[in-house]
């Protein structure tokens, strides 16, 4: 079954057509990058997946069922800004999701339940490289650390789909490379489908299994109002990446031993690296 199915979706704001005639399906555990020029409706599409906005026409299915009309815990999100709560400590930010889900009246856990949750949250923070920052406030973290926190906060809910809206767009190149590594590992270990909006093609090819380009096919001034953007390219990244496995190109290959077929251990272009075993012991799984 497809994780996400988009059937004949249009989005209009009054007379302005933003997106037209989108048809696509996204496989479970895929990592999809949405690219395209500014104003081509990438973020609008992401908001529709999130449930923050509804398609004007057509429908979106999540695991075969119609998408709920409002955001919920099955779809996590990380934005470029405002993803974490400034009034909570790092630990509080990671704990709040579980607290909100479990305590419907006060939204807080006390006693043993709180201690257990705090331990889980610390493990998650260690997983994203934020051990030791538990008692800081987000404003005291760097941009890259804030985004790590936002990822940890979203992953605590074990979402089926993780939506990323240009999450690493404001980071310095070095920090961005580090967080790309983390993002890859999380995607490999956590059973989730990822949809990421980005304007950075390099980032898209570094992380994604599939790249969707949105574009206005008719873009003359007199056409802009009545013709929206649509899916113009749909690229499967090669060599194919499969969640939980490492591709040929990502693997550590010892010098002089680059002909992996000589070892008789490699099915196709991917090989088992033990990432799935690691996942079984990880708090993320």
């Amino acid at each position, binding site marked *: 079954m497809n994780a996400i199915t988009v059937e004949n979706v249009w989005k209009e704001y009054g007379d302005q057509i933003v997106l037209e005639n989108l048809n696509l399906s996204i496989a479970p555990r895929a990592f999809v990058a949405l690219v395209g020029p500014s104003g081509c409706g990438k973020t609008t599409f992401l908001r529709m997946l999130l449930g923050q906005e509804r398609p004007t026409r057509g429908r979106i299915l999540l695991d075969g069922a119609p998408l709920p009309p409002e*955001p919920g*815990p099955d779809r996590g*999100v990380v934005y470029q800004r405002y993803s974490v709560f400034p*009034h909570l400590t790092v630990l509080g930010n990671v704990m709040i*999701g579980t607290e909100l889900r479990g305590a419907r009246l006060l*939204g807080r856990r006390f006693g043993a339940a709180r201690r257990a949750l705090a331990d889980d949250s610390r493990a998650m923070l260690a997983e994203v490289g934020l051990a030791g920052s538990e008692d800081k406030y987000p*404003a*005291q973290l760097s941009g890259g650390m804030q985004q790590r926190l936002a990822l940890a906060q*979203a992953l605590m*809910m074990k979402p089926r789909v993780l939506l990323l809206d240009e999450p690493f767009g404001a980071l310095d190149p070095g920090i961005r490379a580090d967080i790309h590594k983390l993002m890859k590992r999380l995607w490999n270990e956590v059973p989730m489908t990822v949809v990421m909006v980005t304007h950075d093609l390099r980032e898209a090819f570094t992380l994604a299994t599939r790249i969707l380009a949105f574009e206005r096919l008719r873009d003359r001034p007199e056409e802009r109002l009545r013709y929206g953007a649509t899916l113009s390219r749909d690229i499967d990244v090669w060599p194919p990446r499969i969640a939980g496995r490492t591709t040929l190109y990502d693997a550590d290959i010892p010098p002089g031993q680059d002909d992996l077929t000589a070892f008789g251990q490699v099915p196709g272009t991917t090989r088992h690296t033990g990432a799935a075993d690691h996942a079984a012991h990880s708090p993320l799984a």
Partner: protein
Amino acid sequence: MRLINRHPGRAARLFLGSLPFLILVVAYLVASAARLADNPGDKLLPALSSFAQAIETMALTPDRRTGAYLLWSDTWASLTRLWAGLGIATAITLVMGLAIGVLPVMRALLAPVVAFASMVPPLALLPILFIALGLGETSKIALIVIGVTPFLIRDLSLAAAALPREMIVKAETLSASTWLIALRVVLPQVMPRLLDSLRLQLGPAFLFLIAAEAISADSGLGYRIFLVRRYLSMDIIFPYVAWITLLAVAMDLGLGGLRRLMFPWWGLEGRR
């Protein structure tokens, strides 16, 4: 070096800050001495010794008729009214301001009437309050509540509505209900703002308090000032005004300190 780039040091700041106070005091003393030299019976600008005597009478000597220490009983009566008014106003604000800020339906229902109510001049309502609620404590507290609440509500609901939409959506993806969003995401983030706007409303609150006391009361700081005005007792009025100012300043500093203590994250964003 340009003037705009000159920053005074710690000692210089202290000196500059106290300079206007010094000038005021010296100017008063000179003017007072000049008037008293002309006419030793002058009541308009009394000497410091008269102030000391008046303060002793009001604060440290029991009143001949009631046996009460007037300054303290007046202060207690006024602060009770003020705190009751501000407390009720804050409670109403928390409920209505949050509802307006968080729920589009409540905003549609209440925002226009609150905006309208905030334009009614509260002092013009005072006769109505005296007629409807009597001359006792209720009408004075009600005046403070009516005068202060609409502004607090508007400020709080604006602050709540100004939270980034992303933050609300994020809370929804963390399985929060409307109630939990209000309780754990919006409320803690608007509380520092509420304390700040409460500080700004201290001035109007004292204004309404003193106006109500001036017109009808049997104790209170405003009552005393307007009572002794008949005898031109500047030696009592000046210390009372200074005392009221001191109380307001102390409450302002107290609320500011409370905000820093309770919400250490507030302001971190800008400082970084």
